[in-house]
């Protein structure tokens, strides 16, 4: 078998895709999360139900979008569901989402709220959004970090937007919403080390265990002879690339501003956006 050419973003997305399975509503917040769901659905997890936006458009086959999520759902005849439907799916554990936190700590607590103290932050981020709901109800909690560093993988998060392991979880939540996976640019991790601590599951090709430890702001449990993350298959790559013709994943990866503008201009040419209501009323 020939080696397949792939880029680091593609490896990460495919590693994320392989964690998904079963029949769940999968939310589409970020390009990486969206593409992981699309790849999973079109390879090993056909029963996933993808949303076109974070909260609506079930039964569609969306690709990542800067501004067209809702339009895709409408054009594809996706069933418009409500936020309440989404939270019902969260509370009943019929929901999956890949969350991209600003910080994650060795016990899987995550932070998207603030760097520094909450009352007067050094950097005010965005607020906990729906992570408290996810991290108290889902049986699978999936995180990814695109720049594994001591600033993103930390000993203790500055603010717990999502509940990792610790006394609060032991007392009130148990396994409901407990962290299960972390995929970074260096490897795949779980929280099955001693005392529910961060543990390496596989190293991405070419990454060393020393590099993982050095890039982490906390100790990482590293098993002897860790496996290598299997590279993307041709089938996985084909699905991924077909569903991201504008390479929005590269934008999430690198945040190039010019690239955003170009993609914003181009993306509406890529979808058959023809909603009957627009035709009727214009």
């Amino acid at each position, binding site marked *: 078998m020939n080696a397949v050419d792939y880029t680091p973003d593609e490896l990460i997305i495919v590693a994320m895709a392989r964690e998904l399975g079963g029949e769940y509503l999968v939310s589409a917040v970020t390009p990486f999360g969206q593409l992981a769901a699309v790849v999973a659905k079109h390879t090993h997890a056909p029963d996933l139900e993808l949303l076109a*936006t*974070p*909260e*609506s*458009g079930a039964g569609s086959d969306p690709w990542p979008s*800067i*501004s*067209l999520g*809702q*339009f895709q*759902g*409408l*054009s594809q005849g996706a069933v*418009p569901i*409500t*936020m*309440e439907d989404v*939270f019902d799916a*969260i509370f009943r554990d019929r929901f999956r989402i890949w969350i991209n936190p600003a910080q994650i700590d060795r016990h899987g607590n995550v932070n998207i*709220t603030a760097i520094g103290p*909450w*009352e*007067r*932050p*050094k*950097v*005010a*981020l*965005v*607020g*906990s*959004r*729906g*992570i*408290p*709901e996810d*991290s*108290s*109800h889902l049986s699978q909690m999936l995180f990814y970090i695109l720049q594994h560093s001591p600033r993103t993988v930390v000993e203790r998060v500055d*603010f*717990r*937007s*999502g*509940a*990792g392991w*610790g006394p609060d*979880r032991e*007392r*009130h*939540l148990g396994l*409901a*919403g407990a962290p299960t996976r972390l995929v970074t640019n260096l490897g795949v991790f779980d929280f099955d080390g001693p005392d529910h601590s961060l543990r390496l599951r596989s190293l991405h090709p070419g990454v060393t265990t020393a590099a993982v430890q050095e890039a982490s702001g906390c100790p990482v449990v590293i098993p002897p002879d860790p496996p290598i993350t299997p590279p993307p298959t041709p089938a996985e790559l084909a699905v991924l690339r077909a569903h991201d013709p504008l390479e929005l994943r590269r934008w999430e990866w690198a945040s190039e501003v010019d690239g*955003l*503008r170009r993609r914003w201009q181009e993306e*509406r040419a890529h*979808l058959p956006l023809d*909603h009957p*209501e*627009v035709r009727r*009323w214009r």
Partner: protein
Amino acid sequence: MDKVLTVEAMVAKVPDGASIVFGGSSLSRKPMAVARELVRQGRRDLTLIVNIGGPEVDLLLGAGAVKKVVYAFVGFEILGLAPHFRQARQRGLAQFEEWTEYTVIAGLDATIKAVPFLPTRAGLGTDVLAVNPAFRRIADPFGSGQELVAVPALNPDFAFIHVNYADCAGNAAILGDTHIDPLAAKAARTTFVTCEKLVPPEVLRRFGRDASILRIWVDGVAEVPWGAHPTGCAPQYRFDLDAFTQYLEAAAEPERWAAYLDRVRQLSPEEYVDHWGGTAGLQARLRV
């Protein structure tokens, strides 16, 4: 029954110090014409309640109109952090109360269901409970030992919602994601709807279950084309990256921000559309 009025007249009914819940979500279907009009009329000391807040919260914070923000999220999504929200949080320029997505829903729903609170497990194990004094911890009254979060009722004075279509009686159809808009409409003491287009009631009814806001919840309705701009309003238009780029550049520097606010204060809703190239210019860039 005719509840049609102008956006100026709607906003004129909002006193300083009022609490307002906004519909929409992040860069989608935010009642931006209303937010601009609140700035134009110099409203002060507002309490803003949002689930996924964005440019509407940021503009009002940047105009000094806000006393307090109740939020699960405030940001510009793919465009990054909300500049004035960030500044106000970091410098303590307003009061902030961090909720979560479902607890905002539950707080509104408690008001709708005429109960002082609704219980949830959301928030357990997070620091939201540590920094938000509005919540209480309660025990399951049926003795399971489960601890729960009691979410207090949110009682906004006003709801402002921007929709695709409405009729003169206040029935409103939303074709894309409804976000928290139906809940906000039911929970607020006074609910005002702006719409892209007013249509006759018999046309509005054809939208079936997309007509998700019933007139019994609505106190006034205004036709405001492009009323969500620069956020998007599917399926009519998407968000305007050019307008957001201008906004973010202005917000980065005090003098430019003052000039930006001056322009907001000068332009009526109609002049605002003209400023952005009129319907033709906006459609050329933003229709999908």
